[in-house]
């Protein structure tokens, strides 16, 4: 149903967001803003050991403190949960064993927060410390004690070893091969809103209601049903507007489950809001990943084979890890034609807060590695860094060697645009000393082809109800975390029905009231909810158009709707207001409403792990970074970022630019300063002051260019914008630093200390590099060989 842009009436305009008025007047009610009658407060006692057995917990003194209403431990919530079917390894409160400092151990309900905090001090937990596994090397070398009793061996969570094409043959064809090692430090989402949940048990209905700052109400619903042993229909999860997520609120969390359990216990509503420090422990942030990449190229720069190894430091739990590990290998082939590809990876358990999905989940790390290495390959071959990429870039309608199908592909246009805007030709190799410029390309999925747990059901559903006043209400399970999904929903429904965006009321993210949307992750919402919204709106339009056609005495095909009017395209004077048409339809057919849905249908490869990577569509982004480096202080100042993003179609250009600029900001934080680091078994920086992030002062100017490629699988041609544009920023800056100073910083973040160290090496005549020395020696199992079937290639 794609139609030419000139005909859109709502889409393509930079209309204000539908929820902006509330957000700019303090009216938006986030989870922590809610207060229910008789509500009390909960607090959670964290583990002080990275790894220990719990010998005894004595809560009797806490229970006796006046104002304390209830205390629960792991014994009260013995059932395990986790976001993925294969990572059901968490307890809401540690049972018998703690696995990281900050892990929830005991939860208390009290009349006020101070009393709850005081009660925590009265709890006596006796631990028997175990050897802590604090690094990747530890995890590979320390076989006992095991952090979990599952996984292939010792402290390894998951191992992947897979071959696409003829890898050895591919390397045989290469004229030049190089191997490099990179490390990408972990970092965290740091949403400004701390996680919060309000739970209310209704004993007479035997029903639980929870309002939570979550990106995934549907998965919270499932986890609660499992752990609380309640039937699904006895639980209602409402996602409150989320004050920033970036993947940090994608998992079901301990405090959500504890709030529910305590509410059941005491029969009163209860709120648990995490402190900022607790948010650092809840984490699920970017995995630290150590990477080794070997690439073979012909003399003229054509890639013949790649062998990529990644080692993920997963932290204490599985979380999204089984997906994260594959994401570190899945999308290399989407940007560049890699005809033969070997991917081997390990995800390890360590005694640190669990890692999970952060914006662009699992893909910025390998992107950093391969975009850095392409610059090196270009230099080795005396080729231009852009030329070597252009030689290998994929195009539209391409099938990758790991069975991913790309439709629209704006990587070439994005490259041209960003080079033009940045004046690359006049700058590369021509800037004064200390200044440099770097380029990188990246891609991201627009929703995962498969749901997290296997099922045949739609992944997003929208219901629309038409009121006889001429207004419509759209119901969707999708949750707006700031990315603008509410506005996307309203604008798509308005576009199809010929209404204004503000004519569409929204009810969202409430498992009692709204049909399913699986959640805000993997850049799936615009794609999937968008299609469901268009589907529902088209169905709703049918009876309205039918009634209008009859009244206007014209055939239904001639009708069009815009600006609240339904008219005859050939004779626009013959028209009817939407409201009148809706009333005629209601008189004729009864109440007007419809449901729509979407289920992606990408072909999925037939191999283990093939579920990660397939997507209805892929976005592409290119970035040019210009830096000014101070050789005295080691400081890297990013002077400007140019970024071109293939958005398919910009449903709301200003919103898209907002997502792109936000991604650039977060990418700059990752490349320059953000790190979730540990010292002596402890989190080095669980505060906002010490966890450095960019302020107004460090944020450079950003020039954003949107490239529209009209994705055939996208809703009105749209693709994602919220995650993909983060990834190229990191290698573009790293490449620019090399261009400026001739030093390789192969370890993210690029701090002044590392720059100075590399400069010192350079002065000494050593390789001018800071980065990992090598990778752990580990014998991967023989790769499983996978061939793309011939019919896929067509």
């Amino acid at each position, binding site marked *: 149903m794609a139609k030419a842009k000139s005909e859109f009436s709502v889409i393509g305009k930079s209309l204000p967001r539908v929820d902006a008025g509330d957000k700019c007047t303090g009216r938006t009610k986030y989870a922590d803003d809610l207060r229910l009658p008789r509500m009390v407060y909960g607090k959670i006692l964290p583990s002080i050991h990275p790894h220990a057995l719990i010998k005894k917990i004595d809560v009797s003194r806490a229970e006796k403190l006046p104002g304390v209403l209830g205390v629960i431990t792991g014994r009260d919530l013995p059932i395990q949960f986790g976001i993925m079917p294969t990572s059901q390894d968490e307890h809401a409160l540690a049972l018998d064993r703690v696995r990281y400092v900050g892990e929830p151990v005991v939860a208390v309900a009290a009349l006020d927060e101070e009393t709850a*905090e005081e009660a925590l001090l009265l709890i006596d937990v006796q631990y028997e410390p175990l050897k802590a596994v604090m690094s990747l090397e530890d995890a590979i070398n320390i076989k006992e004690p095991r952090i979990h009793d599952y996984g292939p061996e010792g402290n390894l969570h998951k191992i992947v070893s897979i071959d696409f094409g003829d890898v050895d043959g591919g390397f045989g064809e290469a004229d030049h091969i190089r191997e490099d090692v990179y490390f990408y430090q972990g970092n965290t989402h740091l949403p400004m809103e701390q996680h919060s949940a309000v739970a209310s048990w209704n004993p007479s209905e035997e029903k639980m209601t929870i309002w939570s700052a979550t990106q995934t109400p549907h998965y919270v619903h499932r986890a609660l049903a499992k752990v609380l042993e309640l039937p699904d229909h006895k639980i209602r999860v409402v996602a409150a507007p989320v004050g920033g997520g970036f993947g940090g609120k994608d998992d079901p969390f301990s405090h959500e489950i504890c709030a529910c359990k305590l509410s059941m216990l005491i029969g009163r509503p209860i709120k648990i809001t995490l402190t900022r420090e607790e948010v650092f422990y809840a984490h699920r942030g970017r995995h630290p990943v150590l990477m080794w990449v070997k690439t073979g190229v012909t003399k003229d720069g054509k890639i013949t084979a790649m062998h990529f190894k990644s080692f993920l430091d997963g932290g204490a739990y599985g979380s999204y890890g089984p997906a994260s590990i594959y994401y570190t290998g899945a999308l290399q082939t989407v940007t560049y034609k890699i005809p033969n590809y070997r991917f081997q990876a390990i995800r390890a358990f360590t005694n640190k807060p669990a890692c999970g999905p952060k914006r662009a989940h699992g893909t910025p790390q390998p992107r950093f590695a391969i975009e850095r290495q392409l610059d090196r390959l270009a230099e080795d071959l005396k080729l231009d860094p852009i030329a070597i990429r252009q030689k290998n870039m994929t195009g539209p309608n391409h099938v990758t060697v790991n069975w991913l199908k790309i439709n629209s592909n704006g990587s070439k246009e994005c490259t041209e645009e960003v080079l033009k805007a940045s004046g690359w030709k006049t700058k590369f190799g021509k800037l004064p000393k200390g200044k440099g410029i770097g380029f990188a390309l990246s891609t991201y999925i627009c929703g995962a082809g498969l749901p997290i747990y296997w099922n045949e059901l739609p992944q997003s559903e929208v219901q629309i109800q038409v009121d006889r006043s001429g207004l419509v209400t759209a119901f969707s399970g999708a949750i707006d975390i700031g990315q603008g999904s509410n506005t996307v929903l309203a604008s798509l429904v308005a576009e199809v029905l010929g209404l204004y965006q503000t004519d569409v009321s929204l009810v969202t993210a409430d498992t009692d009231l709204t049909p399913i949307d699986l959640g805000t992750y993997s850049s799936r919402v615009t794609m999937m909810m968008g299609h469901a919204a268009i589907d529902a709106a088209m169905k709703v339009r049918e009876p309205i158009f039918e009634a209008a056609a009859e009244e206007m005495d014209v055939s239904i095909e001639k009708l069009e709707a815009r600006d609240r009017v339904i008219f005859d395209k050939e004779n626009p004077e013959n028209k009817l207001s939407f409201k009148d048409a809706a009333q005629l339809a209601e008189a004729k057919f009864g109440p007007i409403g419809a449901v729509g849905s979407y289920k992606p249908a990408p072909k999925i490869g037939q191999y283990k792990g093939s579920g990660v990577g397939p997507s209805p569509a892929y976005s592409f982004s290119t970035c040019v970074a210009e830096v000014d480096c101070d050789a005295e202080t080691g400081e890297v100042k990013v002077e400007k970022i140019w970024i071109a993003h293939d958005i398919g179609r910009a449903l709301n250009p200003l919103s898209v630019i907002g997502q792109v600029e936000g991604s650039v900001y977060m990418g700059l934080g990752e490349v320059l300063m953000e790190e979730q680091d540990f010292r002596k078994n402890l989190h080095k920086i669980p505060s906002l002051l010490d966890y450095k992030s960019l302020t107004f002062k460090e944020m450079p100017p950003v020039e954003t260019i949107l490239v529209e490629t009209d994705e055939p699988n996208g809703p009105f041609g749209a693709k994602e914008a919220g995650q993909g544009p983060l990834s190229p920023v990191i290698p573009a800056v790293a490449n620019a630093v090399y261009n400026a100073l001739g030093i390789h910083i192969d370890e993210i973040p690029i701090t002044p200390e590392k720059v100075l160290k590399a400069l010192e090496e350079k002065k000494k005549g050593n390789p001018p590099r800071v980065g990992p020395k090598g990778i752990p020696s580990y014998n991967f199992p023989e790769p499983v060989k996978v061939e793309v079937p011939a019919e896929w290639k067509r």
Partner: protein
Amino acid sequence: MFYTGAVGTAKTKGGLLESQKTLITLQINGERYEVAVTVNKTLLEILREDLDLTGTKHGCEVGECGTCTVLINDQPILSCLTLGVEIQGQKITTIEGLEQNGKLHPIQQAFIELQAAQCGYCTPGMLLSSKALLDENKNPSQDEIKEALSGNLCRCTGYWKIIEAVELTASRLGASKE
């Protein structure tokens, strides 16, 4: 103690049942509020917990994020570091007081138009810091805007739309006076 979270910040006494309270009077958004508080209760807590003025947000409660910014005598302050007992009789403005008789302040209008609010969580603090700047400096340069807002963190926007909204407001306010 090596962590400052649930345990570290716990007060050894002063829970609801034992604490001594004082009756204080606050002038907020032109209205007078009487509220009984403990001496260590912050303005942030009073606004949100006692007065249901939940438009004021928090991201750290220890003075590191700017999310809890309100105005006292038109100057931005961090409400999480300000005790209620200290500010009796002073003029307090929160996000709820920025709009007058249902009419948005121009800075709110500009934030809406330019999509300077994404998740919206930093927005109340940003708006108040911006208003304070514009009250003092009718035509701030980009550097002055960055300086004035640098204590307010935002994880969503990349800051530029906020800067542009302040500039747009300055130009509109300037134009309307000419």
